[in-house]
């Protein structure tokens, strides 16, 4: 196990940021810490890096007890959401910083910096200042800087959070490919479930200072351990007291299937290739159901506002019993 966190607790005043967290992060993998803002995932990452100290519990990195080591002795690379570029240094100097601190010979530093700038496609910008780079380029520079010292662990705190959607997607693909090339154990924090599902080998879902579930993207999506994980990983709706994904509901305009629930389409919103329906179910007290169908399917069935429909869960679709408390919350989310 590359990183072992055991019984870590952290409080800020009365606020419990982390409550007795234990997790093992295996060597060579790309792990995502996923959760809502304020859930404690960044705090956990900063405790692993030594930028924050735990009130209780231990951190082991590559078998070395690291709980009380200062950050500079942990051999971790850290990448910040807002880049933390050294503004008064050129791109090359930024990347060289860790090596110069370690007093490596000049020609070795130069060779390594050239290699890394090549790796992050910034060779032609070596002599620019960070202020002359775009956000995506700055973050790539920060990555090269963190990788320069050959860390045993690479930690990224919402690395793409400050970038616009298109650059974010590009960098996400790039990070995955980079990781396949470099194979350094990597942990990144994100609140974007799509980012986590797309990039990570393993996802740790953290909420309210506690771990909700650990698993591969498939496991999390197909076998969510709780209604929280289910609703955080994608849109959900409630059908007969069960949480289900809106695209896992089959819609028909005939009541042929036993157990189908009848209702009337009250709203139709088309977003690109999909059509989002809101269905008022013919049962007193049942909340409105959100259903997503493809454009073609909706056209075939001639669905429009006022159409009478029957709903059944798709066979084998993941469902989770709806908690009373989350009912109103999730249906409100879908309505938005």
């Amino acid at each position, binding site marked *: 196990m590359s990183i072992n966190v055991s019984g870590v607790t952290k409080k800020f005043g009365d606020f419990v940021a982390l409550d007795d967290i234990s997790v093992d992060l295996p060597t060579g993998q790309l792990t995502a810490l996923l959760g809502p803002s304020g859930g404690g995932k960044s705090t956990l990452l900063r405790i692993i*890096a*030594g*930028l924050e100290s735990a009130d209780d519990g231990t951190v082991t990195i590559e078998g070395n007890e690291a709980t009380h080591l*200062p*950050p*500079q002795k*942990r051999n*971790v*690379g*850290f990448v*910040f959401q*807002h*880049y*933390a*570029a*050294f*503004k*008064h240094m050129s791109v090359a100097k930024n990347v060289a*910083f*860790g090596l110069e*601190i*370690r007093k490596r010979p000049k020609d070795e530093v130069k060779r390594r910096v050239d290699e890394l700038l090549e790796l992050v496609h910034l060779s032609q910008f070596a002599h620019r*200042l960070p202020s002359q780079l775009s956000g995506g380029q700055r973050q790539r520079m*920060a990555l090269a*800087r*963190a990788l*320069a*010292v050959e860390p045993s662990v690479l930690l990224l705190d919402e690395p793409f959070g400050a970038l616009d959607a298109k650059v974010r997607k590009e960098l996400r693909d790039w990070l995955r490919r980079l990781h396949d090339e470099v194979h350094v154990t990597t942990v990144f924090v994100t609140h974007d479930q799509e980012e986590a599902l797309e990039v990570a080998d393993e996802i740790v879902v953290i909420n309210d200072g506690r771990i909700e579930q650990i698993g591969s993207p498939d496991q999390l999506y197909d076998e969510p351990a709780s209604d929280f994980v289910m609703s955080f990983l994608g849109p959900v709706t409630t059908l007969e007291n069960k949480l289900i994904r809106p695209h896992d509901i089959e819609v028909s305009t005939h009541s042929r299937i036993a157990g189908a629930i009848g209702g009337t389409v009250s709203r139709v919103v088309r977003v690109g290739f999909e059509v989002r329906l809101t269905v008022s179910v013919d049962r007193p007290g049942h909340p409105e159901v959100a259903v997503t169908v493809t454009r073609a399917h909706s056209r075939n069935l001639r669905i429009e506002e006022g159409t009478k429909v029957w709903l059944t869960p798709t066979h084998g679709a993941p469902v989770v019993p709806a908690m009373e408390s989350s009912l109103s919350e999730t249906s409100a989310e879908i309505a938005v």
Partner: protein
Amino acid sequence: MATSYASDPAPVRWGLRIVTLGYVFLLVAWPTALVFKNALANGFGAMFETFSDPEIAHAISLTLTITVWAVAINLVFGLTISILLVRYDFPGKRALSAMLDVPLAVSPVVVGLALVLVYNGRDGWFGPSLEEAGFQIIFSTPGMIMATVFVALPLMIREVVPVLEEIGDDQEQAARSLGANAVQAFRRITLPGIKWAVVYGVVLSLARSLGEFGAVKIVSGNISGQSQTATLSVEETYQNFQQQASYSIAALLAFAAMACLVVVAILRPKEQQE
């Protein structure tokens, strides 16, 4: 910014300019220019001759000594206090921050009196014991340095604190995670980041220290040729109707302070263009 007001009618724009320029001219530029005019009324020769008078030469060199010490002390403590205020949380932080403005609010004469009360050799709190140990504070250079440090204390801190807050601690943390210890992170990352604030702080403290009058007058005893600084000798020569000497020293003090500001103004834009 200026362009957004360009649509105002011409009389408003011109009116504002004339009022501002007239105000600054009457209050600052003209009176200062008159000091130089009077100092140079009998030519450069007469002005420099004044400075060769042993008592006046001593006053100028004493002012230099006090200024160098006061600026150096304020540099070290100003930086330390700024970092403490911005980067650390501790009980009483707000009280400390408020106290640092006291020297700006309180009259320097009061500062001088306060120092005399604490450090005088007869009945001060520390004075008698320090004097027994061989340190004379009041009526001597250390007291004058202390008075000047006190008065110029907030200048460095008020320049550095906002810049430290603005650059944040991300860069320092990045440096730490890359293997730098606290001292290396400060020297290589923090200090270059606040460089210009420090330079400005030094220049402002320098100008303030050169011109300090009230606190130093109380603390020094104002003995000509011994504990008289340049500002004090401006007053004495003026009261003794030595107009030439008085204007010459005043012009020198004004010139030194202005030269500092000009040097910084010239250096600063170059840095930003890089």
